[in-house]
C-alpha cells in the first residue's frame, strides 16, 4: 500500500483550476519526484498533502488516514511524522540557526539539553553548517538558509520529508552533497521522500519515480529511464530543457501581438 494516495484531486484558486483530477501514489521508502513548469501547482500540492489547504474534490490519504477528515489534534499528530522543507526556508527569524534546528525537538520532546545539542550539531554537520550555528537567519544566504531548513526538517526523524526545491540556489558542490544526502537519508533511515525540483538531471538521478504535472493534470509518470525514452514531445522538451516545443513558457492569456495592438490600453 502506498504511503500517500491522492485520488481525483481537484483544487481551484478562485476560477482558476490548479488541479483537475490528479491521481498520485507515493510509495514507502522511495524517492518520488514531482516536476512541472513553474506555476503548475507543485508547492500547492505539498500544502494539500500537509493539510494546510483543502481540496475542492477528491481525497488525499497519508499512511491510511484521510488528511482532510482528521481532527485538529490528529492532523498535528500526523504532521509530527511529516517533514517539510519550504521553498523559502521559512526559518524563524528571531532565533539563531542552532535554535531553529532545535525548535521542533524543544516543542515536541523533553530531551535533556546535552542530547539536544548533540542532535542539532549532527544535523547541522550533515548539511555543512555546524560552524554557522550562531548566525541569525538574516545573516544567511538563500542557499544556506535552505540547508538549515533541511536540517530542521530532519530533526524529528519523520517517516517522510517533502522537499520543495531543495537544490535551488546551491553551488555545484553543495548541490552534489545535498543530492547524496537526500539519497543516503532515504535509504539509511527508510524514509519516504517527495522532491519538487526543476533540476531535472540531479533529480532524475536519484528519483525512483517521477510525476510530470502540467495544466492541472499528470502528463506523464514513470521511472527516469522510462521518461527519457518517452515518445511524447512534451516530456522530451521538459526533460531536456529545450526552448521550443509544446510546453508554454508564458502565463496563459492573449497573444503578445494582440496585446501590443489592443486599442483599449492606449488612452
Amino acid at each position: 500500500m502506498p504511503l500517500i494516495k491522492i485520488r481525483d484531486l481537484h483544487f481551484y484558486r478562485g476560477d482558476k483550476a490548479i488541479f483537475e483530477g490528479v491521481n498520485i501514489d507515493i510509495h514507502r521508502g522511495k524517492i518520488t519526484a514531482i516536476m512541472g513548469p513553474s506555476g503548475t501547482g507543485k508547492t500547492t500540492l505539498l500544502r494539500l498533502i500537509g493539510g494546510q489547504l483543502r481540496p475542492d474534490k477528491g481525497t488525499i490519504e497519508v499512511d491510511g488516514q484521510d488528511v482532510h477528515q482528521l481532527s485538529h489534534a490528529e492532523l498535528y499528530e500526523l504532521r509530527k511524522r511529516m517533514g517539510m522543507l519550504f521553498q523559502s526556508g521559512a526559518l524563524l527569524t528571531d532565533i539563531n540557526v542552532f535554535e531553529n534546528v532545535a525548535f521542533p525537538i524543544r516543542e515536541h520532546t523533553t530531551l535533556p539539553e546535552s542530547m539536544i545539542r548533540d542532535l542539532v550539531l549532527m544535523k547541522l554537520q550533515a548539511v555543512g553548517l555546524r560552524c554557522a550555528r550562531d548566525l541569525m537567519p538574516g545573516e544567511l544566504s538563500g542557499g544556506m538558509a535552505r540547508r538549515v531548513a533541511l536540517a530542521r526538517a530532519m530533526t524529528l526523524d519523520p517517516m517522510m520529508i517533502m522537499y520543495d526545491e531543495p537544490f535551488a540556489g546551491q553551488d555545484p558542490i553543495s548541490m552534489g552533497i545535498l543530492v547524496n544526502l537526500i539519497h543516503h537519508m532515504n535509504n539509511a533511515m527508510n524514509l519516504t521522500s517527495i522532491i519538487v525540483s526543476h533540476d531535472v538531471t540531479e533529480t532524475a538521478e536519484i528519483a525512483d519515480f517521477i510525476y510530470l504535472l502540467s495544466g492541472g493534470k499528470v502528463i506523464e509518470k514513470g521511472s527516469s529511464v522510462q521518461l527519457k525514452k518517452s515518445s511524447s514531445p512534451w516530456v522530451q522538451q521538459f526533460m531536456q530543457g529545450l526552448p521550443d516545443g509544446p510546453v508554454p513558457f508564458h502565463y496563459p492569456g492573449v497573444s503578445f501581438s494582440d496585446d501590443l495592438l489592443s486599442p483599449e490600453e492606449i488612452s
Partner: protein
Amino acid sequence: MIETIRSLGRWGLATFERIGRAHIFLFQVLAGIPGLAFRGSLVVQQLFYVGVLSFALILVSGLFVGMVLGLQGYNTLVDFGAEESLGVLVSLSLVRELGPVVSALLFAGRAGSALTAEIGLMKSTEQLSGMEMMAVDPIRRVIAPRFLAGFISMPLLAAVFSAVGIFGGYLVGHGLLGVDDGAFWSQMQAKTDWYGDVLNGVIKSIVFGFVVTWIALFEGYDAVPTSEGVGRATTRTVVHSAFAILGLDFVLTVLMFGG
C-alpha cells in the same frame, strides 16, 4: 448605479465575514491560554516586549499630561478660589478617563502596531506555515502568549500613567503654583472613591487592553502576506484601535457614571 450597490454589498459581506473570522480567531486564542500555564517563559518574554518596552513612553507621557492638567486646572479653579481642589481635579480626570484612554491610545501605537507588524511578517515569510508543518500550532505558540501579555500589561501601564500623572500635577500645583500640599493630597484622598473611580478606571483599562491586543493580533494574523499588506494591517491596527477605545470609552462611561 447597480454596480455601486453591488460593490457596497460585496463590501458589506466582506466586512461581516472578517468580523466573523476575528471572533473565531479570538476563541482559538482563548482556548490556547490554559496551555500557557506550562509555558510561563513565553509569556514573560512577551511581557517584556509588549509591556516593559512601552513603559518609558507611558512614564513620560503620563508626567506631561499630569503637568498640563495641573496648570490648566489651576487657572480655572483659582477664579473660584478653589485651587485647593486641584488634587481632586487631577486625580479624577486621570483615574476615570485620561489614564485608561490615553495610555490605551499610546499602547495601540507602540505595542499594538509592533505586534501586527511582527505577526504579519511572520505570516508573509511563511514562518507561521512552517510552524504548522512542524506540528506546532502558531495560535498557541505565538499568538496566545502575546495576547496574555497585552491583556496583563495594559491595566498596569494605565495605573502607572495615572500615578505619574498625579505626581506631575502635584509638581506643577505645589512646586510651581504654590498650592498647599496638605490640601492637595487630603482633598484628593477624600474625594476619590475606590469603587466608583479607581475600580471603574481599572475596568476600562482591562477592556481596552483586551480589545487593542485582539485587534492588533488579528490584523497581523489576517494580513495579506505581502509588504504592502502588512503595512496596511499595521495602519488599520492603530486606526481601529483608536475608534474602539474612544467608542468603548463612551459606552463604559455611560454605564458607569451615566445613571
